[in-house]
């Protein structure tokens, strides 16, 4: 094999290795890309749910949306966690308040956090919360009960084919050392 050919091999192979490295990086880049994609397709970017929105009230008197509240507590038997009311009728553009009640059933203190979810996903960008307790670690004393408040406005631009939005929270024990 002559030297020129060897050099060609080496240069093409190293470019291909770079390509493979790029693909590996791309796999990880899909994580942030996924959020971006969710956002532009209206699939619902959950990072939006964390931010407190600044919204001006502009009620749409002609429209009524049902907002449902559901809760799950995947750490078995350790929580009592439920919405104060199951659902409410809201006008888009108007500020509302809802409550969730959580009780630590264990006899030890625990740090927990609630993870939100909006159904249908497309409604995520139209469901704005001015106050929220999600993703913030909450310290509970043993057998402590707490009430959480969420204030929200449904954007009047909510597509007409949605007449019902479900706000769900799942209560997880916070991972040790993470926030």
């Amino acid at each position, binding site marked *: 094999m002559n030297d020129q050919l060897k050099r060609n091999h080496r240069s093409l192979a190293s470019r291909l290795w770079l390509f493979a490295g790029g693909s590996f990086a791309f796999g990880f880049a899909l994580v942030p890309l996924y959020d971006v994609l969710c956002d532009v397709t209206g699939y619902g970017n959950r990072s939006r749910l964390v931010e407190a929105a600044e919204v001006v009230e502009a009620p749409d008197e002609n429209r009524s949306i049902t907002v449902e509240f559901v809760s799950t507590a*995947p750490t*078995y038997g350790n929580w009592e966690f439920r919405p104060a009311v*199951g659902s409410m009728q809201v006008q888009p553009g108007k500020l509302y308040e809802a409550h969730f009640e959580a009780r630590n059933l264990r006899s030890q203190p625990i740090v927990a956090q609630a993870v939100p979810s*909006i*159904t249908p996903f497309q409604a995520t960008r139209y469901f704005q919360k001015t106050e929220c307790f999600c993703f913030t670690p909450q310290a509970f004393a043993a057998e402590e009960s707490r009430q959480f408040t969420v204030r929200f406005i449904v954007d009047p631009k909510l597509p007409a*084919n949605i*007449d*019902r939005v479900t706000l769900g929270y*799942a209560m997880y024990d916070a991972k040790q050392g993470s926030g």
Partner: protein
Amino acid sequence: MLKISRYVAAAAAACLPTGAALAAWELNMPVGVTELSREIHGLHMLILGVCAVIAVVVFSVMIYSIVKFRRSKGAVPATWDHSTKVEVVWTVIPIAILVGMAIPAAETLIKIEDMRDSELTVKVTAYQWQWHYDYLDKGVSFFSRLARDSDDARRLNSGIDPRTVDNYLLEVDNRLVVPVDTKVRLLLTSNDVIHAWWVPQFGLKKDAYPGFVNEMWFRAEEPGVYRGQCAELCGYDHGFMPVVVEVKTKEEFEAWLQAQQQANGAAESEVAAVDSQTENAAVATVARAE
């Protein structure tokens, strides 16, 4: 197009044995008992028909060639090796067929995704390995797990013949009860891993995820009992978490609901018992994971 396919479907359905659970040698998708399931069945028959026609054409040419152009019969090979005209034709025709298929499929899809005007919401929470149904705002909720006789028979070398068990693996202790002709919306979520809720007679399945809430709807048009299974691998007992829905008349449903609500106060302790059972299951899972 869809209409034609419905006739085809009806004709095919008439020829096929469709006697619900007893139908061994079942060949085809059930027509189901909802508008969506019928449309989905229609789409299925339509695309199957399209494929069958293409298959007949292509396979005929192939079989003809295999029979006719044999060297042992002295066939002399032709020398041509392309024809732009033919190649354009068999690229364009499939595209046209596909667009024709996509239109009715898209129509049905839009209906499937239209969640408006639902009349009853049930939150479905999947567990390893049972379902929990919660009638929102109705104060009725319960777990639903594999019926006892199936559960006994399905143990490794149980010595019980599954054929002696009614609705083997397709029966639960507490069925999901819904009213007929009512748009029921399901909110699906999971407590642990991914599961999928599926009743073939309703035409749809949807995944249940931890931390997310998915939705789907159905409107059953005939009272009866409809059976399905978890359709997403969810671990050890994935094969043993059936979905059973009992569709009642509206009056019967109301009566059932009231009875449940009344029994609820008394049954609070029972629910707690079921809860602790779940907890044990969870502990077992964790133990297995470790």
